[in-house]
């Protein structure tokens, strides 16, 4: 499996898994506007998935399509971050997870618009416009809920504390990242950390939330070695049709 294919599945699996998680809110969000907003964000992410996994399939050259990659792989072949497979929890936890990921996603896509691979630069240029909107929105909501009522503040701090151990994996470099960086295809994730920290500190300060101390980081999502059990449950829902009726089309 080439490093480029692995890198592209990481991009596409992050957007696919998070897009699916957000779509689980459809019809359940606290207010109609937020329901629509979450569904629209999910839609953007699924659209980006089609581009990333479409290119992954093309690079692989094994006759698989984006749909095949999304619907016919099992958990151990997924390369998404552990953060995005975390269950939704309450609305606050969903928004906190979104904010932590959006800031990383935005920095990464901004860098990818300068990729030496023009296909990747083109996808990034398309996606970054959508993700900038997501990042503005999730930051605004984290600030509003953090600096809101005692109840909303407590829930946001609890969500931040629970999700913090999943931050480190976003910025962990491995052999694939080193190969991508050497070819000028993608930045080393670790180089995005300083900007992320600055932005997140600003958001958390405005939100009157306390940044957790620990640097412990769960690993095993982006390399597929140790996904949480939550991914398997999610895939059994998302891939239900293809599992029950293999090869079904419409």
């Amino acid at each position, binding site marked *: 499996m080439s490093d480029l294919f692995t890198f592209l599945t990481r991009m596409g699996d992050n957007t696919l898994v998070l897009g699916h998680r957000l779509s689980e809110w459809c019809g359940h969000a606290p207010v109609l*506007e937020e329901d629509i907003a979450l569904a629209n964000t999910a839609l953007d*992410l699924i*659209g980006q998935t*089609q581009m990333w996994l479409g290119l992954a399939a093309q690079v692989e050259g094994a006759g698989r399509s984006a749909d095949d990659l999304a619907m016919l792989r099992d958990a151990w072949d997924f390369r998404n971050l552990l953060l995005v497979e975390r269950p939704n929890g309450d609305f606050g936890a969903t928004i906190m997870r979104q904010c932590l990921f959006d800031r990383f996603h935005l920095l990464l896509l901004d860098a990818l618009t300068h990729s030496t691979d023009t296909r990747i630069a083109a996808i990034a*240029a*398309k996606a970054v416009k959508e993700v900038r909107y997501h990042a503005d929105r999730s930051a605004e909501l984290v600030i509003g809920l953090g600096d809101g009522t005692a109840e909303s503040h407590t829930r946001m701090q609890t969500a931040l504390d629970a999700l913090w151990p999943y931050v480190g994996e976003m910025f962990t470099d491995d052999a694939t990242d080193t190969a991508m960086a050497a070819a000028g295809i993608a930045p080393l994730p670790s180089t995005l950390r300083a900007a992320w920290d600055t932005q997140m500190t600003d958001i958390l300060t405005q939100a009157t939330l306390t940044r957790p101390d620990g640097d412990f980081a769960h690993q095993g999502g982006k390399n597929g070695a140790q996904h949480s059990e939550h991914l398997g449950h999610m895939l059994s829902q998302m891939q239900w049709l293809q599992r029950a009726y293999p090869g079904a089309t419409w």
Partner: protein
Amino acid sequence: MVKPSPAPVPGSAADTTPRYDGPVPQTEGEVWAILSAIPDPEIPVITITDLGIVRDVTLIGEEVIVAVTPTYSGCPATTVIGLAIETALRDARLMPTILTQIDPPWTTDWLTDEAREKLRRYGIAPPSATGPEACPHCGATTLTKVSQFGSTPCKAAWRCDACLEPFDYFKCH
């Protein structure tokens, strides 16, 4: 009593009238003219060329290649638009191929002035760098954002503080 069904939206799947019944187009300009009559499936007062999503047309004999750019990468209307283009060009007895072109990415700067005016008349505030300029219903300029997202990926929900009516705002993108 059974109510008569409403007339199909022009250009929708339910509309079975041919999209085009003139002679076979001989020039790319004639192909553009056909495309400029295809309504956007979600905002039927504007056409797909008003939206700026048709990026290129190449006519070689009876074969025609149309490059289309999506508005938002997950916009469900993209598939419907591709089908509408294909149907219209087949009605014109051409052999169409639809290509998706994402680079450069679509921007609302490509909306024509005519499209902006059509949106306003339809009750949708056209895009602007600083948010909607005026209420599309009464023209007042004191406006409140209700939600960053609206009924389709390209819109946000706003309300007018003067007439209190809600309205869609076509997001600047």
